[in-house]
């Protein structure tokens, strides 16, 4: 019997702290597709955009996490935008610059860690895209709702780092869902940023951007908006009451990508985090 493929799940602290349902659904769907997402004990902050804003030493955090995965002989799967970008950014720099890798390893040694530059990092969308032909062949339930997509900017751009998809009109998330038979609607603001990171400095601008995007999706006939980043979910779902204070007519369920896919693949609601145990 083939051994099941394993990758290390880098949950990121936002998903870890707030969105257990996303992690649960991602694990359940990947298990259905023949891959185990293994918990990453001892992972640290990915450095986000917070640490690089304050310190030149940000890259050490990413190198430490990459080193953890290397020592466990697994590649990394991510769930959020920022984690994906910083890990890929660091990885690209470290793989391309032996002197930098050596310098970073001096610091890592003080923390009992090491990185040789052998780990691959992929966001969940990319991993699902690799499994697209399998999804097409599986038994699928049809859904009675139509979805619009919100693409995670940090997974897509800068394209030199992301190596992901068309940087302006990314299609991978759509292709995965369409392979599963989900009805995906186009909408005018599909490729605009939701604005979540602006919550840090200008809440009004973030809420306005989110409202515009949601309105556009509703007008196009979407019954739900699919995200694949905790940060997007935070703004679009958890700030719903604030969005509705200014725009009471805007109401649109927000779902994580594996929750939608899991429903198609007939994974139970409990395993998708759509109902608490």
């Amino acid at each position, binding site marked *: 019997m083939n051994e099941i493929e394993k990758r290390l799940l880098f949950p990121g*602290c*936002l998903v*870890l*702290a*707030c969105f*257990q*349902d996303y*992690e*649960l659904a991602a694990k359940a769907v990947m298990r259905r597709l023949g891959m185990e997402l293994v*918990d*990453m*004990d*001892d*992972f*640290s*902050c990915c450095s*986000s*955009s*917070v*640490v*690089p*804003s*304050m*310190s*030149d*030493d940000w890259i*050490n*955090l990413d190198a*430490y996490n990459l080193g953890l995965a290397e020592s466990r002989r697994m590649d990394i799967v991510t769930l959020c*935008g*920022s984690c994906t*970008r910083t890990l890929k950014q660091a990885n690209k720099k470290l793989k391309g610059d032996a002197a930098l890798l050596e310098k970073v390893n001096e*610091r*890592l040694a*003080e*923390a*009992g860690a090491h990185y040789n530059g052998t780990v691959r990092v992929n966001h969940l969308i990319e991993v699902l895209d690799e499994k697209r032909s399998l999804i097409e062949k599986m038994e699928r339930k049809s859904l009675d709702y139509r979805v619009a997509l919100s693409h995670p*900017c*940090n997974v897509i*751009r*800068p*394209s030199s780092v992301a190596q992901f998809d068309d*940087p*302006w009109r990314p299609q991978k998330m759509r292709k995965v869902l369409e392979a599963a038979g989900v009805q995906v609607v186009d909408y005018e603001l599909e490729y605009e*940023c*939701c*604005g*979540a*990171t*602006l*919550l*840090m*400095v*200008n809440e009004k*601008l*973030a809420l306005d951007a989110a409202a515009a995007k949601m309105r556009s999706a509703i007008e196009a006939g979407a019954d739900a908006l699919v995200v694949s980043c905790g940060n997007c979910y935070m703004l679009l779902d958890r700030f719903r009451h604030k969005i509705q204070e200014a725009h009471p007519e805007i109401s649109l369920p927000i779902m994580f990508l594996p929750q939608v896919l899991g429903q198609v693949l007939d994974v139970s609601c*409990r395993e998708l*985090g759509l109902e*608490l*145990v």
Partner: protein
Amino acid sequence: METDKCSQCRLCQQYCMVARAGGESITTILSGDSETGAWNCSNCWKCVEICPEDIDVYEVMMEKRRQEPAPVRYKRAFDSVCRIGYVYPVDEVNTFREMWGLEPIRLVDPKVVRKLLGRPWAGDEE
């Protein structure tokens, strides 16, 4: 310098949601239209993607930020990373994980993170 290559074409501004809303961002700084704004950003990286001179607007923005005092939420987030190893509070994660039927996870020792960032606290070394 990286920014010397800037031709002031202002394409990045046209793609920046902050600038389009009339605000200041790294894109208005680059073209000399403002002195401040490096923290006003949604991390969409369209500025990086569109720049015809291949300026690494991301790096330029981060370098500028490191020379300035941080807005309160950035400062708090960074302090949190130094204190607990993460941006978001994690003290109850294993209780939540159990509720959802997830296995417990071992969190990072914050001392490790402080070492990596070169910011040890008194008492970290014993």
